[in-house]
């Protein structure tokens, strides 16, 4: 195993830079979606349509940037589109009290069908245009040439995409909002004990609508980073299950922002490692690819502490 790591150059400085950068690149879209799922589940609604909402965001970011000629508007359109998808999920799971798995699955189907259809309809076989305005990188000049530590910091952190910094800020913001503000208390209370929340005058439906919609907007921002920030184009089903990994990361992170962020980076690292190892050993590489799922399974099985979901997640609330 360690020989493999050495052989693959993971321990050289260039290898390490590539691994850390890879972990960030893979982890950041997960982070947006994972934080979205956190808000939704803390509010008591399981959002299994995360994958579809990411995909929606990924498409509409590219389309929006292409049509308006500005990445800011592209990103905004993506977030609105993701929010609308989430609103659909909210309507079905909160107002109609439909099963949340059924609603989320429907969202995933519809998003995949819709984005693929639009991709072919608008852009045909050539794919999305290559000259669209993408989300810029942020150049931190002060990291250049810090003496003594080589170029590691400069290479890894010097030119990160704007969305990466936004994601990092969002982790802190989510933590503050969910755990330190009255709004956060309301969200958590409707997720733990909606009846009690209702009794003290909290509008359970409004809070749940808000948290589900926000989750869709965040997931869409993650998708937008993937398409408009990272590769600069949209491909058919480009999220490829990342929504489900984000769901896993949230569980592995025990429904907490910093926990989820650590899980996203860990999963990103494992995926970057899988990529680096691909040409040396296929099976080891695939093992690292499956690691997030194994770790999450182990985590929910209670081997590493106990992960406890919000008490009312998945249960529709009926006002009396």
């Amino acid at each position, binding site marked *: 195993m360690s020989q493999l790591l050495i052989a693959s150059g993971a321990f050289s400085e260039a290898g390490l830079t590539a691994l850390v950068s890879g972990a960030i690149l893979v982890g950041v879209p997960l982070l947006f979606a994972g934080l979205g799922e956190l808000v939704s589940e803390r509010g008591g609604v399981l959002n299994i349509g995360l994958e579809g909402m990411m995909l929606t965001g990924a498409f509409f970011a590219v389309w929006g940037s292409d049509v308006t000629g500005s990445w800011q508007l592209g990103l905004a359109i993506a977030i609105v589109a993701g929010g609308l998808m989430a609103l659909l999920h909210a309507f079905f799971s909160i107002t109609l009290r439909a099963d949340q798995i059924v609603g989320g699955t429907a969202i995933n189907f519809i998003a995949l069908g819709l984005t693929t259809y639009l991709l072919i309809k608008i852009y045909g076989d050539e794919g999305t245009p290559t000259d669209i305005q993408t989300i810029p990188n942020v150049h931190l000049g002060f990291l250049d040439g810090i003496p003594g530590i080589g170029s590691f910091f400069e290479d890894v952190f010097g030119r990160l995409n704007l969305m990466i910094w936004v994601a990092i800020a969002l982790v802190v913001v989510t933590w503050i909002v969910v755990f330190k503000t009255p709004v956060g208390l309301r969200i958590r209370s409707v997720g733990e004990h909606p009846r009690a929340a209702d009794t003290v005058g909290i509008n359970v439906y409004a809070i749940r609508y808000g948290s589900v919609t926000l989750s869709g907007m965040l997931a869409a921002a993650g998708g937008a980073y993937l398409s408009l920030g990272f590769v600069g184009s949209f491909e058919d089903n480009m999220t490829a299950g990342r929504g489900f990994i984000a769901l896993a990361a949230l569980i592995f992170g025990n429904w907490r922002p910093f926990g989820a962020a650590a899980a996203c980076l860990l999963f990103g690292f494992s995926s970057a490692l899988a990529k680096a190892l691909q040409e040396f050993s296929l099976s080891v590489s695939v093992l690292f690819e499956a690691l997030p*799922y194994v770790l999450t399974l182990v985590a929910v099985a209670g081997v590493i502490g106990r992960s406890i979901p919000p008490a009312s997640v998945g249960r529709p609330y009926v006002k009396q």
Partner: protein
Amino acid sequence: MTDATSATAELREPLPPSEATGGHAGMGPVADVLLRSILPLVLALGTGAIILAAIGVDPIQYYKDIWSGGVEFAAWQDTAMRVAPLLLIAVGLIVAFKAGIWNLGMDGQFLLAAAVIAGIGPRLEHHLPNAINLIVLFLIAGAVGAVWTIPPALLKARYELNEIITTLMMSFIGINLAGILVKGTFQDPTTTTPQTRALDFSALLPSIPGTESASRRWPGIHIGLLVALAAAVVVWFLISRTSFGLRLGVLGASVRSARHMGLDVSRLIVVSFLLSGLFVGFAAATEILGVKGYVRADWNPAFGLWVVPLVFLARLNALAVIPYVVLLSLASIGGDFAAQNAGLTSKFTLLLVGLTLLFMALTEWIVRRVELGGSYLPGAAARRARGRE
């Protein structure tokens, strides 16, 4: 922890909408079937037609193309063969859903079973009579599917862990593991394409007598279809005519009642999971031994999720699900042709499946309101209101 336990216990309960509302109070069974099982489909097709018209595609032509692409020439045979895996997965889901268990790991169970028998199949060839080979491979596929449900089953039975997450995780692990097997252990040494060795044509499932015709270019329908139909009958009988089925139903309706009645809940959970995985494994066997003959690393038909809406529309009845499965097979075989003709992507069919799910939830809500006499009042208040009628 007690709170979390009750949450996970509740999570199993919101299942089948039919069970939740206790069937057709205040409405005839015919109206019930029309509203709950047929209306959602009609609404989805109608909305699909509106969407098609809006984007400038003639909806009538599109649906006609689905029909001709799925039925004309030899296509009806492809449609019939597609029924086999879909029906077996549906049957597997019914066994689990009836017990209130969300087995969402069917894609991993399916792909892993497919990879294992596609790898072992060519090695067994020519050693034993073909019939025995096929039976052995069928059983192996079933066993792989069943084994892959054991971790979620035990975690749920022993620690009351929510199976939605565990089965999803097992599904992804299964898909990855199937990838390792296909690219590694079972890789066909004669090609660089990551795929298993293909089974000999003669080693595939035989055709149902009379369905083959060289003059009409019919390839023949493999007997996997009969296996699937038989499985549907068996499961229908098991669930509606045996005490085991009754016990599954009680568990699905309420875990607490099941415990109160003295049922061995843990054992029921494990058995229901195993049966579910067994049928999903069989589904993989019909597809590999009947149609494909090999597995390529990038092959993942994701049949599992397609089937979920059908199972609910059929209200967890293994016989009633058959016409829906036929319809879905038709849509999946004919949909490609129709989409191609209309200049759309074949994923457009997914949109229809998603819409069906949403309309199902919508009609369920309306039906429930009608049943409650137009009242929003849930629970006890509604029961009181209904009692007065």
